């Protein structure tokens, strides 16, 4: 396991389904309307007891450890980089869509404008220069965040710790610790 790997962490509870990530990706990669690199799934509204519940789940390509698309690609266009990013080299891609069939999530899609496969490339060129991926940068609520593995774990832990601490408050006049749950 390489320490160079970065992580795009998805904090789904923050997602409000605004699609900023999808549009930012389109601008960054010059995509026409149609092919989607990110999928923002809306779950619900479901009846949950006697109230309604709804949540959103944004997902990109998972850049699998054992990518089925890379194994399937006949030309070697689909490849996995040293830092883990799985991407398709447009110059080698012939648009056969074997990768699209192989992927269990249906992530690679055909860009009908170019005749080549397109999928999330992890903004590999941006992150090579130390920039954040476009989707995470645009996300207004912090549902998509980016950083080293250690920093992402720390961020998750800090958020959880903050929430645990907030269940207790000091009341002004009593100086008692009160359970506020």
């Amino acid at each position, binding site marked *: 396991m390489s320490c160079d790997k970065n992580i795009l962490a998805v904090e789904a509870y*923050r997602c*409000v*389904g*605004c*699609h*900023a990530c*999808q*549009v*930012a990706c*389109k*601008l*960054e990669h010059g995509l*026409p*309307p*149609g092919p989607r690199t990110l999928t923002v799934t809306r779950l*619900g*509204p479901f*009846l949950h007891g006697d*109230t*309604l*519940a*709804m*949540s*959103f789940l944004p997902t990109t390509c998972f850049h699998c450890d054992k990518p089925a698309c890379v194994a399937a690609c006949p030309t070697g266009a689909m490849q996995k980089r040293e830092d883990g990013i799985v991407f398709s080299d447009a110059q080698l891609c012939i648009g056969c869509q074997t990768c699209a069939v192989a992927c269990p999530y249906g992530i690679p899609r055909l860009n009908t404008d170019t005749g080549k496969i397109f999928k999330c490339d992890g903004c590999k*060129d*941006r992150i090579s*220069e*130390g*920039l*954040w991926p476009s989707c995470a*940068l*645009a*996300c*207004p*609520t*912090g549902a998509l*965040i980016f*950083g080293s593995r250690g*920093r992402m774990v720390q*961020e998750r832990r*800090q*958020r959880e*710790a*903050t*929430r645990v*601490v*907030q*269940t207790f*408050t000091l009341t002004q006049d009593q100086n008692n610790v009160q359970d*506020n749950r």
Partner: protein
Amino acid sequence: MIDHPPLHRISGTRKKHERAIRTVCQECSVGCGIIAYVDDNRIVDVTGDERHPISSGRLCSRGIAFVQGVENPLRVTAPLYRESTQDTFTPVSDWDKALDLLADRLKRARERHGPECLAIACDAHAGLDFSLGARRFARLWGTSLVFDVRERPSGNGLPSHLHSPTVSCTEWIRSRCLFLVESDLAETHPVAWRWVAEAQDRGAKVVVADSRFTSSMAKADASIAIMPGGGNLLGAALSRIALDKGKFRKDLLKEAFRDHSAWQASFSNLEAVDLENVLGVSLRELEDLQALLTSEERVTVITGPSLAYRPGHGIWLAMATGLGWTRQPGGGWYSVDTGQPSFQPDDSGEDRHPSVQWSAGDHSSLAQTVIEEASAGRRAPVRALITTGNSLGGFLAPFSSCAEELEVLAHFGSFPTLTLNLSHVVFPSAVWAERDGLFFSNDRVIHWARKIVEPNENCRSGLDFLIGLAERFGWASSENDTEPEDQRSFGDWLLGSSPMTRGCSVDLLLEAHHKGDLVRWPFPEGRLVRRDPPFFLTADGKIDPEPIPSQWEVPTGSERFPLLFLSTGTPASDLIGSCPWITELESDAIHIHPDTAGALRIENGAKIIVECATGEIEAYARLTKAVPTGMLAGTQRFHSPQVLVRTPDQTSEEALAILTELLR
């Protein structure tokens, strides 16, 4: 309070560019900072501005997609003219020629019908230069009909937004409770919603009151379902319970209210209102909600834009003041979409439109009123209309049905819309990214927004259009007006024209922008005063609370049209509406409850007809429990909220019978 170091975000672009412009997005009232990267007069990339105190580098889909609209091949780039709407448009060689043609037609209409036959309409994206220029033109021409979507009806004789002690949304993280009333902030202003999410992570309770299940409600800790349009009445009901239980602080009532006993006495007007039926909530729910809200002092109530058009909007000021919320960091009243002060350049201080009643209703009911008064002979019918954006498809929809009677319809805009297709003369407008200008956002911030790219030579600003038109009527120079000729001098002139902004100047804004500061109005005594919120906008710190009205105008279904239609979402600008990246994300399906659909045998995805008193539309149905049985919701706009729905092979009478039975 525990906190932790924020994530280090690294922004920037890899695209080759000549310059990077730091400016502000003007697609909605949040006013997010953006950095646009330009190469050869084309926008090659857009990122958020990490230094902006409110948006901190975040953007929503509109703030990115606008780039597509600026270069949209469907954009109108030359003035167009036709004699009648039956003819096809012919391009006009230049603006001057087109302005001559328009001026001629206007003069003819005026000779035939008198000056009151002209109406000018400014949509939400018209720009301040157009809306101010429109009022000046109307005043010189002699008509009182200026529809400006940004101007809200008066209450208390003064624009209601003057009384809202708006706390910046960045303060919400200090709040203990955020109470959203008929505002789906997560959907309409996701960058502002971020502050709600941050507050919630720090233990603030989020409470949402709305008429349907929204994205914001999905994130709430507690929620209450109310009838659409019942927001202000909810506030009044909660206040009455709070008064009865002694939750209003006596010291604040004496100190901060100019006449609190009169205000308390006006609650007798609530006695005649059947709260449970009109609001659709039980007394128990109201009491529980009241207990929740008054258990905290740091409460910010966030009210949606539609509440400003309804009676009783002043209740929020009274509540936030009397319950002590405005005295706390992270507490107060935040009224969405009211960050712009009122500009009255003619200094009359009076209601600008003496012949049209503003007291209640939104602009489309105002338009309806004007049409009805004309048919009844009480005023001159409108025969000439100058309008921006897709007004006839939106807030001026009543005029679209009598568009054939218009002798002159001039459209200032650049995208093919219903309004353009009904007009006689079209003047292509520069979009906000193509002009400098003043821009006001929520949080009372004043921006000097720098232009990003140069427009096509035929796309001009509203200032150019109206000055050009005025010249043709001999009003170019008058001794009293100092003529602003360009956006910069217009900006200074505008800032100097209102007591709320006098003391501010474009130079001051540029300097602050350079330092990464935000400038907020007002400027008391002409000085820029930095003060920590909250603060009052009245000179002596006392408020005049609006008395509780007796009429609340919460719409209900009618006999012929038993369902209520809720128009959702902020209407997008024509610029955004032309972006394929946005339109592919939207759905114009109409939400309908499965029980209602089932009774009418409407299946998910089926074609339906929605009728209202003035017409009908076709749409597709989406079955969801997010709307109550008596309601439909969608992005469409109707003249009135009472509607009927049916399948194409049902008659209206059949559907009406089924619905009446169902809703009994």
